[in-house]
């Protein structure tokens, strides 16, 4: 590090912001979401059997707030995970190449687009 060196501004705030937002959303709602969609509904526990019926889920995904929630959960969870996995790869000695970025942020980006396209089409 030389003090005369010209330092580039880091673009990390974008990715760090998405990481933080996703991390917070996952911390607040993640465990209960997994419980509801992955355990309670398939096992018929606690909630009414038709909680996630086609009609109810379609109505939820057509509601503007429902759309927003689904989009936020899928996209932000993906960006959160992508950021952490990208850093972990670096920490394991696999250093930031295009491959690493495609595998992490690339997958998050594609997932975001897919989720947006479907939600807008419903």
């Amino acid at each position, binding site marked *: *590090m030389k*003090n005369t060196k010209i*330092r*580039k*501004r*880091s673009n990390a*705030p974008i990715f*760090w912001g998405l990481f933080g937002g996703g991390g917070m959303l996952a911390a607040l709602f993640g465990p209960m979401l997994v419980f509801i969609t992955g355990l309670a509904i398939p096992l018929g526990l606690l909630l009414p059997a038709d909680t996630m019926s086609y009609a109810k889920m379609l109505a939820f995904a057509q509601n503007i707030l429902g759309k927003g929630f689904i989009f936020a959960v899928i996209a932000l969870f993906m960006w959160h995970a992508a950021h952490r996995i990208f*850093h972990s790869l670096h*920490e394991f000695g696999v250093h930031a190449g295009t491959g690493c970025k495609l595998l992490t942020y690339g997958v998050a980006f594609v997932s975001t687009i897919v989720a947006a396209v479907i939600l807008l089409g419903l």
Partner: protein
Amino acid sequence: MSDTQKIIEIEVLRYNPESDQEPHSQVYKVPFTDDMSVLQGAQYIKDNFDGSLTYRWSCRMAICGSCGMMINGVPKLSCETFLRDYYPNRIRIEAMAHFPIEKDLVVDLSGFMEKLEAIQPYIIPKEPRTLEQGEYIQTPSQFAEFIQYTSCINCTLCYAACPQVGLNPDFIGPAAIALAHRYNMDSRDGGQAQRMELLASEDGVYNCSAVGYCSEVCPKHVDPGNAVNVNKIHAAKDYFLRFLSPKGGSK
């Protein structure tokens, strides 16, 4: 010395740049008493076994910050770490991690010094005052904003603790960022924008991945980790809001 004299094995990572290709270990059997620190153990070796053993020390009371080393892999001040806490096991002492070794336990701190200089660790006055205008006034609550960060003794244990410093030696690192934060938080200071250029750069705060070990090893409870993480928030605000307020930090 009585016949109940306890003896501890101290394994020292030795390196002499004039004769060694790479560092190697050497074990010494050191008689000790319960009040002896690891630093005193090293002094015993130097006085009795090998006068060439090289290490830094000065105050022997955890305030000068010069006797940091890896003790069984943990960055610690050797003056406030006691041999009795490791006995009867062998104790291993090495030069601080993530720094080039100069000789034995002495590391090259020039990279750290450059980082320290780069964050401008002094008050850059908001508005220069003449003598006639009198002193700068600061309230106790304004003082409380930064007092914690003034406790840093530049021992660099936090650098030895930080894996990100190890992975990217250009990362400005915990202590220097904590000191930047100390001046940024000072009500008399107006240098935030200048320091932001560095904190928000690719060598800056976003190298940190919140491991938090820096704050754990800090002998002065400075909590450099929090200073780094708070500045991620500041740098993000600066990043997104710079278009709204053209006065903002860096280009």
